[in-house]
């Protein structure tokens, strides 16, 4: 069940310019672990301990994941890491 993970442009220095990566994982956290195994350093940029870094959100199939790294992924999903924002 590989997910379609879009690498943020500022982190493509770690993926040798690759924009999209197919990786497995049952949660966002597991997906980041799998990414980090292929492209060391990605986890350090995206996570802070057991959570996504403040200011970073994961969007799964266009929907912001409310559970962060623990967000479950039941089907093959499209995943983006985007700046978190709320509004005024």
């Amino acid at each position, binding site marked *: 069940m590989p997910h379609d993970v879009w690498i943020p442009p500022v*982190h493509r220095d770690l993926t040798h310019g690759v924009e999209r990566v197919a990786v497995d994982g049952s949660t966002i956290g597991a997906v980041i672990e799998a990414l980090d195994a292929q492209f060391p350093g990605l986890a350090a940029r995206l996570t802070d301990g057991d959570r996504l870094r403040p200011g970073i959100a994961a969007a799964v199939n*266009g929907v*912001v994941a409310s559970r962060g790294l623990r967000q479950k992924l039941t089907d093959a999903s*499209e995943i983006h890491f985007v700046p*978190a*924002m*709320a*509004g*005024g």
Partner: protein
Amino acid sequence: MTSSQYKVIGSRPLRPDGVDKVTGRAVYGADVKLPGMLHGKILRSPHAHARIVSIDVSAAQALPGVRAVVTARELPSVGDTVTDLGESVVNLRYMSNNILAHDKVLYHGHAIAAVAADNPHIAEEAARLIKVTYEVLPHVLDGRAAMAANAPILLPDLRTNELGKQGSSQTNVAEHIRHQRGDLAAGFAAADVIVEREFHTATVHQGYVEPHAAVALWNEDDQILVWCSTQGSFGVQEQMAELLQVPPSRVVVTPTEIGGGFGGKNSVYLEPVAALLSRKAGHRPVKMTMTRAEVLFGTGPTSGSYIRVKMGATRDGTLTAAEAEMIYEAGAFPGSPVGAGCGVLFGPYKLENVQVDGYDVVVNRPKSAAYRAPGGTNAAFAAEAVVDELTEKLGIDPIAFRLHNAVREGDRRADGPELPRIGFIETLEAARDHAHYSAPLPGKQRGRGVAAGFWFNWGGKSSASASVNADGTVNLVEGSTDIGGSRASLAMQLAETLGIPYADIRPQVVGTAGVGYNEGTYGSRTTFSTGWAVYELGKKILDEMRQRAATHWDVPVDGVTVQDGTFAHNGDSMSFRELAGQLEVPVSVSASVFPSGFGPSFAVHIVDVEVDVETGKVEILRYTAVQDVGKAIHPAYVEGQLQGGAAQGVGWALNEEYVYDDKGRLVNASLLDYRMPTALDLPMIDTVLVEVANPGHPYGVRGVGEVPIVPPAAALANAIYQATGVRMTELPMSPARVSAALLAAAVPA
């Protein structure tokens, strides 16, 4: 569910808080009075950038009637912790530094020390007696200048963050964001027409009517009680706990009524200072209120910006590529809305080849705060003007061009994710078909402009509780500050769910001690997210009431039906009110939600202007705001949101700006000189509500409050061009600036 099935939703009942507000009985922040209360005042920096060499408070402390003086020394060390505090990501050390300056002042008006005294006059006099010795440093006000290699550095420890990737050298660039998809060079190579322009927008304030006000009591048992005007009591609790290094459970926040916030009343300014003064003054309550000048000096405006936009299209009007650079001034500490601006910029358009670079840059201005669709107005001003110029060069009607390129469900945003069901096409069609768009506009120097806008909206965490009264009414207890009529919109959703009249719901807003966790009233989230919580409450009440009805009739609960507020079983029936009167065990429920299905909003504005070529004054002749509102729960309040957003956008576009002298001092900190529009400046703003239900909400709600401020500046700039032939690329388009532009272009009077 279709709109025809609703009995309450879509109606226009009176607001529950209306009588108190029009009779002056409503309690706002400055109305709170407690026994033994002291009054606090802040001393603010006269310099834009200076090192604090020493602070001597002895003369202030010696003044009769003075009970406490505090400086940043009284603030606990909070370390370099970056955390999500509801509305935005903050570095707590910077936030503490903004509350009371640590070792440097970073903007004119930066708070340095505070005094509590028996009355406000003594406190003010004592504040003036505090002697501060400064070493004045070079300052920088402009974002691009602050990025230069030789610019004064504001925060020596600041390093550029790129979505978690940290820079290694000193800088004023706090953050760099990049969205990039496709092949930009190929996209521009395929274009028949390319337009590239640069834009500037000024620093502007939210302009809420009610200045900041707070009362704090640090009790002998270390409970901290706060009453304040805020968009979110739980956000105040979190910030207080972090800044004062106390457990959140020790902080109880009670929100008063609020006289506007628009994003500017999420951050704390006075509350921690009042608490410190209270503790030092022997645990007496301390009230602090800002003057209008203090609001402008010391609270968050939204960012001024520089934006460069380049877009290309083929002869048939298809956009082929878009590129932008956005530099937003964060103020003295990181946190401009450039991230949102990067998303809003090309939000309305389907683009396969796109790149946006955004920079969050610290400058010697007040720390920016959220302002209604933060960053969106700046962005749309730039992109929509370039789109307008493309349509002109291609000879295509502006709305037809937008329809041709408009995003639909499944298209990607610039930052990648696909869009859910949205109503941009329907909104554009409604604008195109509106009588305003095709009405004749005769006369010299008159023009019609149109612009579109996008906003993400937000969901967030909400809680609410409810109990059924013996007379059949229902108490609704919620924690979302009511800024735009949310008591009504939430009560209506509960009434609809229960099948009882709106008048039978008694909503009240309580503080952190009275309800489960709620994010603040921001991000156009309350009617959506707290509405979800209220919908869940309604379902829980009906489940419990069905159980009670089954017990009453001594039948299995499965045999009891409920419809339109009537419970029935095998020929027996009871109304909600009749059943409520016979409850042996009370019914009370609570619900907490974190819904993610908030749907984005789109707006299209049309405006007619007449430009006085001699004075440069822009008069608005007609204004129409068209918007996809999902489902309008209370249409009158939704229309009010559209009108309010447009009115603020007009002020931002035509008059408002922070003006500084050559020493970096703000010189227009009053409403005489900081010119906001009045009723005399605005025509009736007509509204068109387009209802494309949001599938992520049981009643189709999508946020409505923010997107209406996104298009106005762009629509006005496009109208001014139609009237004069001059493209305005700098906000505000004030008489002086328009006049200068017309002179430069030799436009005849």
